[in-house]
């Protein structure tokens, strides 16, 4: 499928109809069913919306900067036209009574949601293997994982089903699958895009972003989605404006701590090549030390489960979602509903959250992690006093095999070690395709900037695309 701007030009000029683009996306979705990237299609609603747009375009109306562009949303975004499941049994039949603000904004700009993508249930995981409905397969090698938790969204973008897909990124859930499937992945500054109508995971690091094939498309999508929402009091006043040209001669720090021998040799090689390209483009790249970074994963797996245990308390079988049958007391109803509705990883995180928040352990775990988080943020502040951007790999390896890490949660968590630090500090970070290993598996490089420097990161990455 074409790039976003080409689709919009076609639709607005009448060269092609919005319906033809939606039909093309739906056809590709069916042809690529074997990847299990999508949990549902919103065909009926999508075609109806496309026809409406075509009629109004023909009548001379301006249908917006994304007129007729089909997209896919991760299935933790509340959307009309299909259930919103969060890839869980808990919400298997949940018909959203409203749509996420992000989706409303995209629709107001003329975009058309055509389907809902697979994820790790409730976005807990880094491989999409924790979906209650089965894993998504990697777009390049079907024996490998899609990455996660936004695996389905990354794969539909890589397979060119749609020009963009929405994801959520709490600790790497957009950047890591983008790296594993060879597409662009954007995790904005915390607070850039409203989370209203998106299934909450960890409220202090949850962000909304997108997958695209290139930076220009990502800039268009983020520009539409960003801005304050009265329904999400953590949103920032709109600061995001794509830059027409890249700031020259930037000072960039290469994070040495993530280039050690235990990182895959191809990942290091592709990262070093990207660094050389940055230098050739006139930027300065220096190696930097960030000793606190290796502790970020431990902070994350205290803070996030704590917030998960609290956010997932709402799934009690009372007001909506799954309710267990054959129970006699309220306690039994809660217990059995939650046992049946959650996958093992959900339970693991909820119980770790209960542990680190319980009296006797609170200071040693939760409080210590939040203090360590301050140290991490201070370390970033010091680095960004000297550097415009930090660069490093997205993940220690390319996509691993399906089932390979499934039995060892700690090993699975280690795949997040490079994406988690900017999440805890609320920083913007983008995942940029940087080549492949010998087997053809994609490898991504991560660019990280200070808060609200999203536009600079994207302009810098865009300027490197042709090099």
């Amino acid at each position, binding site marked *: 499928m074409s790039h976003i701007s080409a689709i919009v030009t076609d639709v607005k000029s009448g060269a092609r109809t919005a319906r033809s683009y939606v039909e093309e996306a739906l056809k590709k979705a069916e042809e690529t069913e074997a990847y299990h990237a999508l949990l549902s299609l919103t065909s009926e609603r999508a075609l109806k919306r496309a026809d409406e747009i075509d009629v109004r375009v023909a009548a001379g109306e301006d249908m917006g900067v994304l007129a007729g562009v089909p997209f896919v949303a991760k299935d933790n975004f509340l959307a009309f036209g299909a259930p919103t499941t969060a890839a869980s049994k808990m919400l298997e039949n949940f018909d959203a009574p409203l749509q996420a603000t992000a989706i409303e904004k995209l629709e107001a700009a003329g975009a058309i949601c055509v389907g809902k993508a697979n994820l790790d249930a409730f976005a807990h995981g880094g491989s999409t293997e924790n979906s209650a409905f089965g894993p998504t397969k990697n777009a390049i090698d079907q024996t490998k994982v899609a990455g996660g938790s936004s695996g389905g969204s990354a794969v539909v973008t890589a397979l060119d089903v749609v020009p963009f897909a929405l994801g959520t990124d709490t600790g790497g859930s957009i950047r890591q699958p983008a790296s594993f499937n060879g597409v662009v992945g954007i995790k904005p500054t915390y607070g850039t895009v409203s989370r209203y109508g998106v299934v909450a995971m960890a409220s202090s690091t949850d962000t909304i972003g997108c997958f695209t094939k290139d930076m220009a498309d990502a800039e268009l999508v983020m520009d539409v989605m960003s801005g304050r929402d009265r329904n999400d009091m953590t949103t920032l006043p709109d600061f995001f404006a794509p830059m027409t040209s890249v700031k020259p001669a930037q000072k960039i720090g290469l994070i040495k701590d993530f280039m050690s021998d235990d990182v895959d040799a191809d990942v290091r090689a592709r990262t070093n090549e990207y660094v050389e390209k940055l230098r050739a483009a006139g930027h300065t790249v220096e190696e930097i030390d960030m000793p606190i970074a290796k502790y970020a994963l431990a902070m994350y797996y205290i803070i996030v489960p704590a917030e998960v245990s609290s956010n997932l308390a709402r799934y009690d079988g009372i007001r909506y979602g799954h309710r267990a049958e054959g129970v006699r*007391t309220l306690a039994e*109803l809660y217990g059995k509903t939650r046992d049946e509705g959650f996958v093992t990883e959900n339970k693991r995180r909820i119980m770790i959250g209960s542990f680190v928040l319980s009296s006797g352990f609170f200071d040693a775990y939760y409080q210590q992690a939040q203090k360590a988080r301050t140290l991490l*943020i201070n370390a970033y502040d010091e680095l960004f006093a000297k550097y415009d951007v930090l660069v490093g790999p997205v993940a220690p390896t390319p996509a691993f095999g399906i089932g390979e890490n499934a039995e060892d949660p700690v090993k699975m968590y280690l795949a997040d070690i490079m994406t988690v630090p900017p999440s805890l500090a609320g920083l913007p970070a983008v995942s940029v395709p940087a080549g492949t290993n010998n087997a053809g598996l994609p490898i991504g490089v991560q660019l990280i900037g200070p808060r609200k420097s999203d536009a600079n990161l994207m302009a810098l990455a865009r300027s490197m695309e042709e090099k």
Partner: protein
Amino acid sequence: MTQISSDDVQRLAQLSSLQLADSEADSLAADIENILGYVQQLAELDTTGVEPTYQVTDLENVWRDDKVIESAVAREQLLALSPESHDNQVKVPKVL
């Protein structure tokens, strides 16, 4: 290192309103012990006098007027989402 037994897991499950099968509790005990073992490395960091960070927006008390905001979602729609409702109310099993 913190030892986590099956009984500990069942206690955590109870705190979390989760009714676990014994077989699942056994495997979760090992997982949780490993994860807590991993995160204990934070004890190496000196955080004396360091303030905790709970949020990263720099926003403070975002006020709004104390007015009822019309919801786009009707009461009937919300009630229809509940597994069981009766007389305009959500129905639950008896509590006591």
